[in-house]
């Protein structure tokens, strides 16, 4: 800067001296002064923002860690005094001195409800996402999308009551028919008398996860590169063929990630399941879709008001710990899938 050969540059660098001088230097002044101030602010802001972002991330990570530690600490004494195998037993006697509790039944019901819910929800969600992004004009599409998203705003207790009082009784005759025709398959064998069964809970859960899966699928399908679509069409593909060879492969990993998020939601859903699903006390696991049962979350919620001893609390928290790990695993898998780039 010192040896500036040019007069214009000289005036600008030398602005302190020139500060009070004529207006002809106006072009140099406003550029240089704000430049200097701006540089310092930018630096400080940068640092603050970076620190803030780190702090935010640290808080979240620590929170998850603390929840995990909290669960483990409370669960450990009870787990140590559990007189049956925690992973394979279906018993749950925690009110007395001898603790007998196992999660086999809870795990089965939780997994079955969540998986069936996903089997029902994903095709519908993908279908609506394709309709919205590929078939109907933008305005109609966003209206449909808005309506689907509204489902996410309904409280789960409303879904639960709806499933218990309306959907279940309405589907009763269909369940009877299904049991009559397919009863020889264990999955469709006789379960509980009422319609408070796994299938009703799954259908309600499917509706609840629909907006999650649908919204994310919509976003990924909408991002299919124009080139891919036009290339497919130029090769003479019909609309369906274009979707099959261009849109679906592009969005596949996104849809899988969306489903995993939905699955996490389905695994942890509490109130709706608690209200709909009948508890049973027959020993062992009934694998049927028409059986009752309890999920991890519904069992804990159902009994949370009567946690009167540390041993009892610990047993339920141990079940909560398994759900925590399970959800964690599902989210991790969805992460891996989502990170895998499109073919």
């Amino acid at each position, binding site marked *: 800067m010192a040896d500036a050969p040019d007069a214009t540059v000289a005036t600008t660098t030398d602005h302190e001296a020139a500060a009070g001088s004529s207006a002809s230097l106006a072009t140099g002044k406003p550029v240089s002064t704000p430049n200097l101030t701006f540089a310092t602010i930018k630096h400080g802001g940068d640092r603050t923002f970076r620190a803030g972002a780190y702090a935010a991330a640290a808080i979240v990570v620590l929170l998850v860690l603390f929840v995990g530690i909290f669960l483990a600490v409370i669960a450990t004494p009870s787990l140590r005094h559990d007189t049956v195998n925690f992973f394979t037993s279906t018993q749950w006697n925690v*009110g007395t001195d001898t603790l007998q509790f196992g999660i086999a039944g809870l795990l089965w019901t939780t997994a079955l409800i969540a998986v069936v819910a996903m089997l029902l929800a994903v095709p519908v969600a993908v279908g609506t996402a394709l309709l919205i992004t590929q078939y109907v004009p933008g305005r109609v599409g966003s209206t449909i999308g808005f309506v689907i998203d509204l489902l996410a705003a309904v409280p789960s207790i409303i879904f639960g009551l709806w499933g218990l009082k309306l959907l279940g009784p309405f589907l009763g005759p269909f369940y009877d028919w299904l049991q009559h025709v397919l009863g020889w398959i264990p999955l469709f064998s006789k379960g*509980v008398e*009422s*319609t408070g069964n796994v299938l009703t809970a799954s259908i309600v859960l499917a509706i609840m996860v629909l907006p999650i899966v649908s919204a994310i699928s919509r976003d990924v399908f909408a991002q299919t590169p124009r080139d891919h679509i036009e290339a497919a069409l130029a090769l003479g593909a019909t609309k369906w063929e274009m979707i099959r060879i261009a849109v679906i492969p592009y969005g596949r990993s996104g849809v899988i990630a969306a489903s995993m998020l939905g699955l996490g939601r389905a695994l942890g859903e509490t109130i709706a399941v608690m209200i709909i699903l*009948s*508890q049973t*006390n027959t020993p062992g696991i009934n694998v049927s879709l028409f059986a009752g049962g309890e999920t991890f979350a519904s069992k804990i919620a159902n009994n949370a*008001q009567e946690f009167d001893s540390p041993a009892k609390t610990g047993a339920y928290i141990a079940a909560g710990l398994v759900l925590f790990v399970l959800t964690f695993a599902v989210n991790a898998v969805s992460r891996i899938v989502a990170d895998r780039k499109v073919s």
Partner: protein
Amino acid sequence: MAASGSGPALACPAGAITGEGSTAQTNAIQQIIASYNDACANKAKIEYNATGSGAGVKNFNAGLVDFGGSDSALSTAEHATALARCKSNEAWDLPMVVGPVAFSYNLKGVSKLVLNGDVLAKIFMGQIKAWNDPAIAALNSGVTLPSTAISVFYRSDDSGTTDNVSLFLKANAPTVWTADHSKTWKGKGGEGKNGSAGVAQAVAATDGAIGYLEWSFATDNKLGIAQLDMGSGGVALNADSVGKALEAATITGTGNDLTLKLDYATKAAGAYPAILVTYEIVCSAGLDSAKTAIVKDFLTYFASDAGQNSLSGVGSAPLPASLRAKVNTSIQAIK
């Protein structure tokens, strides 16, 4: 001073008291608090936190609340702790709210059904599976029972109602209902539903269903309530029959402590013994005078005709006159 003509003469002192405990009496006590406030133009502030009987006793003994509410009277050890809490004065258990259990059923074409403890225990243990079982028919001569399968519904959440039902079953059919009484249902088979509301809904929706409910849930949902045959014919659930069962109870408390020992298998004529009694636990003396005045006045209203009769809407039966007189004597003896 009292708003209603039949109400007791109330002093209506100003101030605030807090009670805590049993969830079984929540509706009853809220109702009483509301009508007491009406009668006293809201001069006193009375709060009741329904946190469970255990918590109620614990916090009463810790001096955190002015009275406790509990499904069971104080144990000897709890009485000892209460002695310290009430400044070397005894604490008294006063039976205040009587909540009967309704065995509700839903059976097409059957509007009157009589059951007894033994048959109920066998139904709940899955030993009687159809409505036309000879054991049920024997109690219901003249009634055509369908061959519908029995669907049992119980509470999936731990509850005092379940505890009470198992006490009743154990007393009447000890060889069939072998499990100890507990807040967790120990029956075999059937389906658990969340809360009384869940059980009531399931019974209402299922032909052939039976379940146990707090009285108000059975009447609110217009469900059939089985009569109990304790040896001399069916007894319907009503204020009168519940009162008779209470009169059959013995008072095991000493002096003004009115701890009751219920006889779940009483043979007293016209008694319906499937009931739950909840107590208010109070210091006989030792609380500061302003609070004592409110406690006494509030409980006086609670035990009055007007107070007790207003509870039918929330599923409680009024205390019988004989017991009410004793409760009132105790209340007036609080210093």
